[in-house]
């Protein structure tokens, strides 16, 4: 299916899902994430492969990006969820896609976003006793090397 067809299907089912300007990424509300994900997982869209989860720290908000693909239908969707810095918590998708387990742990480790319902939310790349969340824009470390001058 083409991206605009998929977007159309999702947005008729969930009217509150919006499309990001400039890209064809879909933005879901934090509360409805699990419901939307459940719908994407099953036919007709059958997005059976949660390929990548990442976050972007936009300072005033935190964006979570889910990249989904379907091996059967051969199409893909990028789903975004925006979080406020005061409430960095979202439902875990580990029950729907097993790959979410480690990917969510990575996001938790580097951004400090917690996933409720995650079976084993521990740090994964940094040591278990690490302080702070390195990929946040306000993270500082004395050993961090400044940007090279051009």
């Amino acid at each position, binding site marked *: 299916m083409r991206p605009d067809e998929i977007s159309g299907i999702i947005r008729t089912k969930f009217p509150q899902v919006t499309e990001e300007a*400039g*890209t064809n990424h879909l933005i879901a509300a934090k509360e409805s994430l699990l419901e939307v994900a459940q719908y994407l997982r099953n036919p007709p869209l059958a997005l*059976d*492969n*949660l*390929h*990548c989860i*990442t976050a*972007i*720290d936009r300072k005033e908000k935190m964006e979570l*990006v889910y*990249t989904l693909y379907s*091996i059967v239908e*051969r199409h893909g969707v*990028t789903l975004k969820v925006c979080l406020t810095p005061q409430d960095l918590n979202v439902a875990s998708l580990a029950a729907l*896609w*097993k*790959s979410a*387990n*480690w*990917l969510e742990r*990575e996001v938790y480790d*580097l951004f400090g976003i917690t996933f409720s319902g995650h079976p084993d939310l521990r*740090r*994964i*790349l*940094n*040591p278990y006793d690490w302080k702070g969340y*390195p*990929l946040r824009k306000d993270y500082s470390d004395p050993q*961090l*090397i*400044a*940007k*090279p001058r*051009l």
Partner: protein
Amino acid sequence: MDTQQTKDIYTEEFLMNMGPQHPSTHGVLSLELKLDGEFIRECTPHIGYLHRSMEKIAENRTYTQFIPFTDRLDYVASMNNNLAYVMAVEKLLNLELPERAKYIRIIVAELNRVASHLVAVGTFAQDLGAFATPLFYCFREREKIIDIFDQICGNRLTYNYIRIGGVQFDLPAGVDEKVKEFVKYMRPKVDDYDRLLTYNTIFLARSKDIGVLPREMAINYSVTGPSLRGSGVKWDLRKDEPYLAYDKFEFDVPVGENGDAWDRYKVRVEEMRQSLRIVEQAINTLPEGDPTVRVGRVIKPPPSEVYCRTENPRGELGFYVVSDGSVYPYRLKIRSPSFSNLAVVPELVKGLKVADIVCVLGSFDIVLGEIDR
């Protein structure tokens, strides 16, 4: 832990640490094993020993400066990493490449795929106890590929050859003959591996029906690459979402039947043959012209975000690049194939013996450099 006290002997589950320093973990991976005798009840991997915070570094480097860092992700297949990253940046820039650049990229990427699969096959056999001989054979062939790369870009392991807008240098004179010679040399060697290893009784006994990864589980865990195809899923980005000029070449996508360790190994051997086919077609139809397009020294992509994935020897390597219009990436996420492939291992090794962990890990061909990033 459960302790069962019988008359004078007692058994109990115990914890064993495998790694981080262990030859069969192919790097620094630590597996915490809960054992019942020799059988594995639970396996918890601990990763991050090689974490060099590549994604944070990327935010403090320009787009070109980050290319050498990608070499150090999956250091067995550096060319393919360069390619994946550079393609993501080019997608941001909306850059159209000359045909010659595409062909040269395909040639080096496929040669590197063969080199990487040679390491995978050699070390897998070594892990299973075929001590030294297969590894030496594989490294003998790999050396020839590295010689070619040395001639092309002057490096033997971290190439930094594929650049934004093309490649570093055009192919030097005489390399095309060398590549053709290598393809001719390599074909019978792959058949040799089949005779030596693939149908060897001991090899079959060690790897058949070990670590069976069912089709649905592989997709659910987002396993990609030869490990996914070993489970019978015919999915290869070079075929299904062709990038560069892969749609112009004829090649097959080999798949396994049962999804066991042997199938994953077999897919790799078969892929070497297919890669040689691609290299041969590409070198014979190499277009003339300039292999680079001028992009200027300061690269400032427009504010946007892209996700670009390519088929690496280990699976799908993806780069999620966010640009804010400056010379530095605002955010760069590396989706590495080995990371997702390793996540499925604890599930597969339950109930197997300790020696089989080595077999399962070897069949996934993980590289810790790209897992820890």
